């Protein structure tokens, strides 16, 4: 019988990390991720995890320490948010470039200025192209489950890339939910210790991070492209493995009502939950709507997305971050690119920016978006291609 406990998103991630037998944690507390770091340091202090907790003076140092530790073959975790992730920015590229399978919990939060501590995806989208795998959880259960799977995905020798597990700041990080947790032994069985191939070892010296001039740098980047593409299959394998272990099914994306949907919302994270609830109500009124929630944003599951879109005529893509000056925002750009690549550019798309700086998106907002998408499906006309939901004019 599975053990059920009440955990916030932050607590769920810390609990999962505790069970994953990590060797090194180097992290710096920042709202709304603080509790993750506090709990992990407590676990180390209490002897509940046999890990080294490195107290660092900044997020830049946190990620630097993680890179060093990961290169020795250790299993490494860190966590951050917002300005902390921004401060880590250059080290994120070093972690992926040196192929360190670090797992990072991110409690997504807006970026300054103006100063704001609430949830949006600006932080992780700002590091969109840093070569990390990115997962977005809808609730605390998913955050817990993805952390355990993430170590297995990242450390797979076909991948060897860092991965971030994202939870919406406050909405998930601070809300207590029902979480089914595994027994420690079961996690150990699912996730055996890391088996590194090349590690820093004084007995067998190697050089990492050597200067790579124009004659080799490009090849290194090409390797990373390949590794991220490979991660697609590995993620799927690990999802299957996890399902047989827990009965909880994960994939690169989740769909709701898409078998006959005429209009759909595509959203990352917790908002997909609201969208599903509204879609359920609308469907009971006979309206054919659906929801696509990419669990994995990098690698972008475009084939799965196209399959999920099926015969839907209109897609409303929700972005909780702004790509200033871009034709569409991050998620929508990827959706449109995927449709184009698969010869489905006739599907009508509009992009809704929402929830910046933690502004609530309500079921009423979502209902209006669905209705607008249905209207566009019926008339064949998209009224507004780029909308800002709930902003005062």
């Amino acid at each position, binding site marked *: 019988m599975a053990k059920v406990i009440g955990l916030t998103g932050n607590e769920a991630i810390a609990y999962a990390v505790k069970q994953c037998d990590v060797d090194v944690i180097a992290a710096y507390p920042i709202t709304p991720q603080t509790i993750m770091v506090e709990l992990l340091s407590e676990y180390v202090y209490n002897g509940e995890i046999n890990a080294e907790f490195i107290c660092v003076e900044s997020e830049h140092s946190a990620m630097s320490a993680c890179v060093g530790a990961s290169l020795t073959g250790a299993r490494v975790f860190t966590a951050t948010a917002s300005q902390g992730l921004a401060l880590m920015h250059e080290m994120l590229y070093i972690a992926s*470039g040196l192929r360190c399978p670090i797992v990072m919990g991110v409690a997504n939060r807006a970026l300054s200025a103006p100063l704001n501590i609430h949830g949006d995806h600006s932080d992780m989208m700002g590091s969109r192209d840093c070569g990390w795998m990115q997962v977005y959880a809808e609730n605390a259960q998913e955050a817990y489950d993805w952390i355990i799977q993430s170590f297995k995905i990242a450390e797979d020798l076909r991948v060897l890339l860092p991965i971030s597990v994202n939870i919406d700041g406050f909405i998930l990080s601070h809300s207590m939910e029902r979480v089914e947790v595994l027994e420690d032994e079961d996690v150990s069985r699912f996730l055996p210790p890391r088996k590194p191939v090349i590690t820093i070892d004084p007995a067998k010296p*190697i050089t990492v991070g*050597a200067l790579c001039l124009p004659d*080799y740098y490009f*090849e*290194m980047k090409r390797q990373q492209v*390949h590794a991220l593409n490979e991660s697609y299959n590995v993620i799927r394998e690990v999802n299957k493995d996890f399902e047989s272990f827990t009965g909880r099914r994960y994939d690169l994306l989740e769909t709701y009502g898409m078998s006959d949907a005429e209009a759909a919302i595509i959203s990352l994270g917790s908002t997909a939950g609201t969208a599903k609830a509204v879609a359920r109500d609308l469907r009971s009124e006979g309206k054919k709507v659906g929801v696509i929630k990419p669990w994995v944003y990098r690698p972008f599951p475009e084939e799965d997305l196209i399959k999920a879109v099926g015969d839907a005529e209109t897609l409303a893509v929700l972005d909780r971050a702004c790509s200033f000056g871009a034709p569409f925002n991050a998620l929508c750009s990827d959706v449109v690119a995927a449709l184009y690549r698969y010869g489905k550019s006739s599907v009508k798309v509009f992009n809704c920016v929402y929830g910046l700086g933690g502004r609530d998106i309500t079921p009423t907002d979502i209902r209006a978006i669905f209705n607008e998408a249905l209207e566009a499906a019926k008339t064949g006309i998209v009224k507004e291609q780029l909308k800002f939901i709930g902003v005062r004019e």
Partner: protein
Amino acid sequence: MSEIKLGWKSLPIGGVLLEPGSAMRYKTGDWRAFKPIIDQKRCINCLLCWIYCPDSAIIRLEKFVDVNYEYCKGCGVCANECPVKCITMVEEKR
């Protein structure tokens, strides 16, 4: 230079160098745009070029100096410092 460069499928992942001292094999002379030519008949073997060369690419011989073109990057410091002006910088033709 003559070294065969591997493609991304064959290189160690993450650009790890698996043995120490491999920089010795990395010839950087092909960065050069200008090549120093020493008129060894006029060289007085004062070794100022040997002292100033930032890449240790001047070779000391018994009566005059020579250049190690595998590492010389053609900066021209030697030609500038030579008191008898016996070093000429000649454009590389590639």
